[in-house]
């Protein structure tokens, strides 16, 4: 893989996770437990969608450097199949209950914030600019999801039970967040990408602090799933894409 191809793949990873999570959060529209949270949920989704657009637009421009034509953000979002998506397995997991959604959000936000902060120092000015902007937004996301984990974990016996179950169920999808591949390491070496291995310790510390305050147990490290970054997804992604991509595939080039 030449450096542009590596960069393209990396930008897909950066863009696909917020894109897929934004789609999941969009499923909450009109279903939030209270109006305030319904609005908050979709506002977080909107931030993530905005970030995904910036990453994928850049990915398409980089693609044009080595391919016959670069795809635009819409083509990348609506015309790739599940095997071509590079998002984390965590973000494609179904919404479940509010406890499941907030647990997924909390585990992701903590990682996302650390990643964006690290990328704000990238040698690639475009990456640094998108990341610095995104980090400001992710700070509020992390604050909100952390608050809810504490509120529900240290809440009623029912909410505590549901939070613990949600954290336990999602834990196996957190491992791949800190596992780089050769291309990612090469870009990190060049000061373009972030070395995700360095994010593991601060992430664990933050997660442990919040879960402890929430009276929840930190799951033990057992088997960790991986494959999202390589395009090997859980069965949930295909169903999500069926809904997300339906309009574009049924009515190609449709515009408002």
């Amino acid at each position: 893989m030449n450096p542009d191809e590596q960069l393209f793949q990396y930008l897909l990873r950066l863009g696909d996770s917020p894109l897929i999570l934004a789609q999941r959060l969009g499923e909450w529209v009109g279903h939030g437990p209270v109006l305030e949270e319904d609005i908050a949920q979709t506002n977080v989704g909107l931030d993530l969608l905005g970030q995904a657009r910036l990453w994928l637009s850049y990915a398409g421009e980089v693609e044009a450097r080595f391919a016959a034509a670069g795809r635009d953000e819409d083509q990348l979002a609506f015309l790739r199949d599940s095997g071509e998506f590079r998002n984390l397995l965590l973000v494609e997991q179904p919404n479940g209950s509010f406890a499941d959604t907030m647990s997924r959000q909390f585990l992701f936000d903590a990682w996302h914030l650390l990643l964006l902060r690290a990328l704000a120092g990238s040698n690639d000015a475009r990456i640094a600019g998108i990341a610095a902007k995104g980090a400001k937004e992710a700070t509020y996301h992390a604050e909100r999801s952390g608050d809810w984990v504490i509120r529900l974990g240290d809440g009623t016996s029912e909410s505590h039970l549901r939070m613990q179950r949600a954290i336990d169920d999602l834990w196996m999808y957190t491992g791949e967040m800190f596992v780089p591949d050769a291309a990612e390491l090469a870009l990190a070496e060049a000061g373009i990408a972030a070395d995700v291995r360095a994010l593991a310790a601060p992430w664990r510390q933050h997660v442990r602090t919040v879960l402890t305050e929430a009276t929840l147990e930190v799951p033990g490290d057992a088997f960790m799933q991986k494959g999202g970054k390589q395009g090997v997804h859980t069965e949930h992604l295909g169903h999500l894409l069926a809904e997300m991509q339906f309009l574009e595939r049924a009515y190609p080039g449709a515009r408002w």
Partner: protein
Amino acid sequence: MAATETPAMAATDEALAEAQSRPSIAELWLVLGTVPDPEIPVVSVVELGILRSVEWDVAEPSTLIVVVTPTYSGCPATELIASSIREALAAAGVARVRLETQLFPAWTTDWIAAEARRKLREFGIAPPGGVRTLSATTAIDVAGISPLRSSGVAVACPRCRSLRTRLLSQFGSTACKAQYRCLDCLEPFDYFKPH
């Protein structure tokens, strides 16, 4: 016999004439100062601080370059703001506008003009930057659920100025605002989050 002008020369003369009759940059800032933010119409896009520069293109003197920075990556008002800017400039006689988006340095609420902060408060939105305090949100929660933690910042109610307010949700009617409730006058209100 008079020399006939080549089309290229005519175009250059036209551009020159256009450049001479074009409005000044100061006038254009005033024009842009009339473009409201779609979500908070009491504040202009200039007061919001999202217009970073306005200048005539050096290579193409009849083209105006307007540099805009988004408040949030996913702000849905971005496209509407762009078309409002084009319309206002067209009405002022500037037909050719090139809008450029600049992400870095990222927009910050520090760029909101002082005058706009007053307007926000009068509109019912608490402007960014609350007062640091320790026990701002330790109110009794009737639902028996622990209150949301906040960053120890008390936000003054834009209606009664009380500092006894509490955070309801980190996200309000738009991503850039949080929802609060005043514990004295009991009114809910939006808080423009520091960013």
